[in-house]
């Protein structure tokens, strides 16, 4: 009897210990999700205050990866916006881009978003979570009210509206177009002119590969440097509305017409045209590969000018050219349609947008364009009100291209949700290394997009 009861007790203890152990393990897994308040439920109906008052500072929350915006803000605060900074001192916080969404969500639920904050596209498009809460200032209206609407360029305005489905929630701190940066020296050494069609580009890549030069630099860690190839091929082949039709559920990414672009990029990978060991190659390493002269081309946005205009560039800015992505024969898209964006979204919180913040915004709108071009060689969506002299050849080329661009298109992931965005980038290395078929790649993205 006793031994039976001892056995029972031991068994009970063993089960209890097992349960506690498992609970402890899972508890650590769940603590993070549970530690945040459920208070978000009650915040839907919050309205934008008619007359917001300023906070104690010009509080800014940006991603750690964004080095250009904080540098520019500091430059303005110590220069032309000194008076505004004295009234509302600049205070910048940065957090890794991977955590920015979670941080924004928690700050929003606590009604504690800073005056200027980096945010994800889905939250700030019309109907997005932050827009519904009244946490997003309409920049177009705000600039009009301040009398500086003309300081946002028409291209920036139309690109922003396309990017955010009709809304203007973000300040155009950059005005980027995307295309192919290429090494003029390498092209000249092999007697190759800039390709006008995609088959020509592939033929050129074959020549470079044979000569032991990496044809195209791209990063697997930042897989969007690969997935953009799929997007731009879709725009060239199916026309500027290719991705809009997917967003409107009128077309499917895994249909044969869309699949073709992924197949072509996968084939490029198979032919060894992308950086070797691409899977874990970082963005900085891929850029360094191009700026060290080890590769012939890199598909990139014009934000690359910041690196080209820095000491990182070993090729020399005069040896770097910029060309539009070539045409696909028989395609409905045009070589003059550049994928464009106004940089990663930076939003103003209307709840702390008082008179001092308005003065800051006015100063930014009037001065950002010139200051950004002068100190970083980067174009913004704000007008360059003071002429900037001494621009190098590649910067002038990009400036002329932006000024002459007649029509812009979005980029591959622009209208994707958060998960599809991540999957497009995360699976791109597998697509070009053959670890994933084009059907699987596009199938995953289509499944993500089909989710409610």
């Amino acid at each position, binding site marked *: 009897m006793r031994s039976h009861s001892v056995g029972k007790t*031991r*068994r009970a203890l*063993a*089960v209890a210990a*097992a*349960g506690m*152990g*498992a*609970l*402890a*393990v*899972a*508890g*650590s*897994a*769940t*603590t*993070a*999700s*549970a530690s945040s*308040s*459920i*208070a*978000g*439920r*009650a*915040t*839907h109906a919050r309205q934008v205050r008619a007359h917001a008052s300023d906070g104690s500072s010009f509080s800014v929350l940006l991603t750690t990866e964004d080095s250009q915006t904080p540098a520019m803000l500091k430059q303005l605060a110590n220069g032309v916006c000194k008076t505004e900074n004295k009234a509302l001192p600049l205070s910048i916080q940065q957090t890794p881009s991977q*955590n920015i*969404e*979670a941080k924004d*969500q928690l700050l*929003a639920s606590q009604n504690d978003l800073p005056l200027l904050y980096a945010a994800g596209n889905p*939250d700030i498009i019309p109907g997005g*979570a*932050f827009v519904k809460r009244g*946490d997003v200032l309409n920049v177009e209206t705000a600039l009009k009210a301040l009398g500086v609407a003309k300081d946002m360029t028409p291209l920036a305005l139309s690109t922003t509206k396309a990017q955010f489905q009709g809304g203007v929630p973000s300040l155009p701190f950059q005005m980027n177009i995307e295309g192919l940066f290429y090494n003029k020296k390498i092209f000249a050494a092999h007697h190759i002119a800039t390709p006008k069609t995609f088959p020509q580009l592939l033929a050129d890549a074959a020549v470079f590969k044979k000569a032991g030069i990496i044809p195209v630099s791209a990063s*697997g*860690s930042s897989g969007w440097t690969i997935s953009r190839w799929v997007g731009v091929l879709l725009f060239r082949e199916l026309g500027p509305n290719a991705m809009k039709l997917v967003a409107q559920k009128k077309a499917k990414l895994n249909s044969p017409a869309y699949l073709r672009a992924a197949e072509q990029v996968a084939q490029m990978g198979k032919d060894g045209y992308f*950086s*070797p*060991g*691409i*899977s*874990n*190659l970082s963005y900085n*390493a891929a850029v*360094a590969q191009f700026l060290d002269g080890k590769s012939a081309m890199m598909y990139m946005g014009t934000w690359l000018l910041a690196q080209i205009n820095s000491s990182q560039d070993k090729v020399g800015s005069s040896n770097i050219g910029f060309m539009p992505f070539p045409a696909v024969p028989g395609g409905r898209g045009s070589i003059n349609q550049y994928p464009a964006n106004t940089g990663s979204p930076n939003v103003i919180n209307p709840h702390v947008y008082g008179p001092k913040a308005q003065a800051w915004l006015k100063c930014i709108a009037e001065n950002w364009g010139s200051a950004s071009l002068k100190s970083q060689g980067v174009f913004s969506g704000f007008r360059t009100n003071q002429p900037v002299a001494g621009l190098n050849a590649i910067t002038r080329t990009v400036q002329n291209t932006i000024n002459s661009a007649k029509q812009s298109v979005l980029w591959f992931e622009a209208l994707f949700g*958060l*998960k599809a965005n*991540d*999957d497009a980038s*995360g*699976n791109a*290395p*597998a697509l070009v*290394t053959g*670890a*994933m078929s084009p059907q699987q790649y596009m199938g*995953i993205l289509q499944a993500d997009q089909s989710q409610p």
Partner: protein
Amino acid sequence: MRQVFGNRRAIAFFLAPALLVYVGVIVVPVGWSLVYSLFTGSPASGFKFTGLSNFGALFSDPTISQSFWFTIKYAGFLTLGQIVIGYGLALLFKFVLRRSSTFIRTLVFFPVVLPTVAVALLFAQLFAITPQTGPIDSLVQLFGGHPVDWFVSGGHAFIVIMAMDLWRSVGLFAVILYVGLLDIPDEVIESARIDGASGFSLLRRIIVPMSRPIVVAATIFALNADLKVFDSILALNNGGPGTATTPLNLYMFQESFDYNNWGYGSAIAVLITALCLVVTLLVFRSLRRDLTKG
């Protein structure tokens, strides 16, 4: 001492602080997660009760199935490695190196104290192919092989993850098991030797049975720790390529905080809880007899 343990007030006094912390830090969040799993939404957009729909979604999500089996495979292989190699090292410390094992023990234990992210970055470089060829691929080339892109597929990346996490953690298990071996009385071993046991028979008939309780404890400890792997894989390759090496914990984090699916993320957390409970019970069940004997 018997008086103290017979006094309920004394028991409550000693247990209450630890119990309070445990309940506050572990039990409440687990319960909270269970509640979240019945809702959809995020802090900014608000939450909406959706019943068991998040659990239903677990069955139709292909990534969950992939993550689930990856987690099982990872925990199974790593625990096996940790216990077998750790036990081997413990035997080496106790019976071969004996008193001079201090230096070797320190060396073997050293990776345990290194920050996980630093170890992951170290291994990313060790197995890199570009921009510089890492030491591993250099060795492959030295022996006439072609350099390997170790992060090109889930299978290749799994090898790197195993090597990294074994190197990082095996020292801890070696020390835990070594302490267990020290608990075996020298007289017992001596008697067995006098009775003619030596080498493998001594190990099989005396050492292993007598060290079984510590092996069981270490196995449960290892399994539970391995089932919740997160930081090392996040820092090494973020669960890539794609989601090929994404464990459940990392997927839960991505769903909750990257994609704002707090309810679905919590449902995954509940799945992890259930998995840990089942695995721990299975280990206890399969070794219960020996445990009570030990």
